[in-house]
């Protein structure tokens, strides 16, 4: 089991934040090839708890982002946390009618392996790619 100390938390924040930002950069690039979708960084997801304060860390801020279609907010990307049971990282793609997960299935030191967990009973899993991500956005938009 992982030992949690201040250095462990700080390292995890650095690695996790970089992975999330790298993913947003990739999605931003994919969306830039479309005429109507765009990604805009939004207010961070803030994690606070007593355990963090014991290590002198008041809060963790994880980058979040919004996806617009023709200037209308379509969906938001919100990280679930940095210590996720069942995944390395997870980002929720939330919208009015659908909830889709982006899940990093890599181990700590490996390169990210992002998958899409679709809303249909959460059983359909596909690799995160430009084509698959745009398909998801088109389904959300229906």
């Amino acid at each position, binding site marked *: 089991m992982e030992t949690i100390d201040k250095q462990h938390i700080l390292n995890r924040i650095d690695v996790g934040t970089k992975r999330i930002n790298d993913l947003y950069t990739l999605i931003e690039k994919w969306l830039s090839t479309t005429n109507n979708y765009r990604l805009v960084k939004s207010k961070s997801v803030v994690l606070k708890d007593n355990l*963090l304060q014991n290590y002198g860390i008041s809060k963790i801020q994880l980058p979040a982002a919004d996806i617009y279609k023709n200037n209308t907010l379509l969906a*938001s990307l919100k990280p679930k946390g*940095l*210590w996720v*049971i*069942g995944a390395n990282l997870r980002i*929720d793609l939330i919208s009015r009618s659908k909830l889709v*997960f982006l*899940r990093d299935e890599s181990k700590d030191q490996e390169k990210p392996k992002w998958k899409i967990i679709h809303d249909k009973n959460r059983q359909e899993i596909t690799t995160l790619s430009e084509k698959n991500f745009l398909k998801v956005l088109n389904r959300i938009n229906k």
Partner: protein
Amino acid sequence: MNVIEELEIIYTEIDDSYASKEFEAHSKGYNIKENEFQNIRSINDHSYFLIAFTRLEDRIKTVTQNLIDSKLQNLNSWSYIRVWRIIKNRESRDRLSFLEYVELLTEKGQSDYNLIRDYYNDRNIVAHGNSLRSIDMATVFQDFKRLYNDLSF
């Protein structure tokens, strides 16, 4: 449909519903409401993880009890029966730890044993209120459903 599958359906309905409310609050700039819904989803994750784990735990204990009874009924040689009598005696007096039940069904150190052991450790962390732990319930339900159906003797 087994109990883990039933729990998954109820959990998913609740999570979907609150995710939709979280998005509505976010789209209107209602930050406090958005945080509330995010927090409710996290509490829901923790609650269903603990409930689902207890159901898996029950299943593991039941299958192990069936294994012990089967061994006592079907083995003929005293040299084997004596070991199972001791196990039965310990089990009936609640002297077997959870991981010993698991070890009677799966090979220690192999993938299923390690998976259950890791979830057991996570369960202990979550049960003591470590809120740093987020849970990907899609993975948890996928693993628990497979284990619930596959564990046998």
